[in-house]
């Protein structure tokens, strides 16, 4: 049977390039989530931090860093790193303890301060680290991988650069009224086409920036919610943090090669498909139940891949879905009503949590101008380097 937890509060610090310490952003988001939940910080029993690797030691022990910043009060603590999936892994830790009855109410929080430009590997000569070597030997930045996937869509499915540009146009329109988004400006197909090529066929306006930002959740057992008079909270029905099954046959950051499928049948589902599938199985729901989704649009073309990976359509049909308006607010299943990474830029440890905040607002009917009307079920999906799946299903 489905085992659920409640989302009592959500909070975010606006995304941007603020240049301040990441802890400040995290405190703002956490306090906003606490206020939203009506929970006193001193009553929180567990703090689950999503780590950042670019802010020194405090970032590696984010749970304790935020617990200290909010004022020591003796809560249990955990810190999680799973690259882009860190937020989901932190949420997964909180959920496991709540469902096991080890705690009633937890804070999940992630925040980042990012440098300008490409995300680069850690410094030093590290000849046995594939994340270092891919830059050294191939100049294989993250957008390099996005470019490979985008070109593949063009070659296999007849996608066009104009299709990709329309993802940006849609997400910019969605994010226009989102007070937490970094870029709140409508963009035209012509502006996308006029922006410089980064990793052909992808252009600057199609690749997500790196941002500062923070997001937080207060989650609890359903009994705890009930004890506070909340009888019908937004619920988390599934958290999938699956790893790939061997052989993983899709080239992934930061690898130089896929697994070899020699002599062994590839799994029934590829890694990306398996991430959402595991969540659907947990929730007892399927793609047809979704009213909205927040997917990881590191690039415009990658958003289209996700439509297929989460089962909104068959492989090769994502462009049609987009162009029919199905994934625009007002359409059959709006995707990235927040504006997505295209409007936010990526604040790595905060991003998967921010996706959950966005879906929670829609399920409460509190998403303002970008509200997906009547939303009852929403999904978030994301993937972290080295095989970290991340998918959360929420329902009302």
């Amino acid at each position, binding site marked *: 049977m489905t085992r659920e937890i409640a989302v009592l509060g959500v909070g975010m610090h606006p995304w941007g390039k603020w240049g301040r310490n990441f802890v400040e952003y995290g405190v703002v988001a956490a306090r906003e989530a606490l206020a939203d939940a009506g929970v006193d910080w001193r009553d929180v029993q567990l703090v689950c931090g999503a780590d950042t690797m670019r802010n020194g030691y405090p970032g590696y022990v984010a749970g304790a860093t935020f617990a200290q910043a909010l004022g020591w009060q003796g809560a249990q603590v955990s810190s999680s790193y799973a690259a882009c999936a860190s937020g989901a892994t932190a949420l997964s830790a909180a959920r496991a303890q709540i469902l096991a009855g080890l705690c009633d109410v937890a804070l999940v929080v992630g925040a980042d301060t990012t440098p300008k*430009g490409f995300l680069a590997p850690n410094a030093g000569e590290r000849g046995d680290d594939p994340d270092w070597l891919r830059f050294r030997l191939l100049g294989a930045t993250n957008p390099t991988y996005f470019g490979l996937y985008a070109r593949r869509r063009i070659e296999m499915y007849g996608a066009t650069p104009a299709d990709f540009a329309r993802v940006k146009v849609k997400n910019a329109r969605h994010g226009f009224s989102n007070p937490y988004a970094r870029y709140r400006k409508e963009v035209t197909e012509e502006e996308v086409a006029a922006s410089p090529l980064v990793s052909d066929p992808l252009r600057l306006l199609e690749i997500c920036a790196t941002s500062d930002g923070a997001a937080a959740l207060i989650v609890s057992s359903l009994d705890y919610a009930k004890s506070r008079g909340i009888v019908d909270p937004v619920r988390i029905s599934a958290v999938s943090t699956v790893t790939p099954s061997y052989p993983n*046959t899709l080239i992934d950051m930061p690898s130089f090669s896929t697994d070899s499928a020699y002599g062994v049948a590839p799994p029934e589902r590829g890694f990306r498909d398996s991430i959402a599938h595991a969540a659907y199985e947990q929730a007892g729901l399927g793609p047809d139940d979704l009213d909205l989704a927040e997917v990881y649009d590191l690039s415009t073309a990658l958003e289209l891949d996700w439509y297929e990976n989460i089962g909104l359509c068959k492989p090769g049909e994502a462009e049609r879905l987009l162009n029919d308006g199905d994934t625009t607010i007002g359409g059959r299943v709006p995707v990235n009503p927040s504006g997505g990474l295209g409007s936010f830029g990526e604040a790595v440890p905060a991003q998967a949590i921010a996706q959950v905040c966005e879906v929670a607002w829609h399920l409460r009917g509190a998403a303002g101008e970008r509200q997906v009307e009547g939303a009852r079920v929403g999904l978030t999906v994301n993937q972290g380097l080295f095989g970290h799946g991340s998918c959360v299903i929420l329902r009302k």
Partner: protein
Amino acid sequence: MTKTRVPAVEGWFTMDPDDPRLLASRGLETGSYFFPKNLAFSRNPAAPAEELEEVTLSRRGRVWSWTTNHYEPPAPYVAPAVFVPYTVLAVELPEEQMVVLGPLAPGADPASLSVGTEVELVLGTLYEDDDHEYVVWQWQVVGGEAQ
């Protein structure tokens, strides 16, 4: 003075200029290939205890996808004094049933590529210092040798 040619990374490919190959490991039980080479353990969960041997990978494969980078990447990429866009290929090796990345050898026009284009492994210069030329593997379009 001739510079010494050295691999930019040890143990990833042979330095035979006429028939260069990527070096990989292969499970003796399952036949699974692993690149880059790792002789310490098999990553095939069906055979956790299998022994591994060093093998070379097929020299030829077919393009799975490609992209041309127009911005200079951050360190540890060693950029030339004047940055030039470069193309990264993902190449499918039919025998090994795996996809391996590598740069496109200079001189080829990426616009001539499509999924399925046959390419073969060559050696090329990644960067140089006063005494050394650091060599990396590259993919060259078959029948379209660089001049």
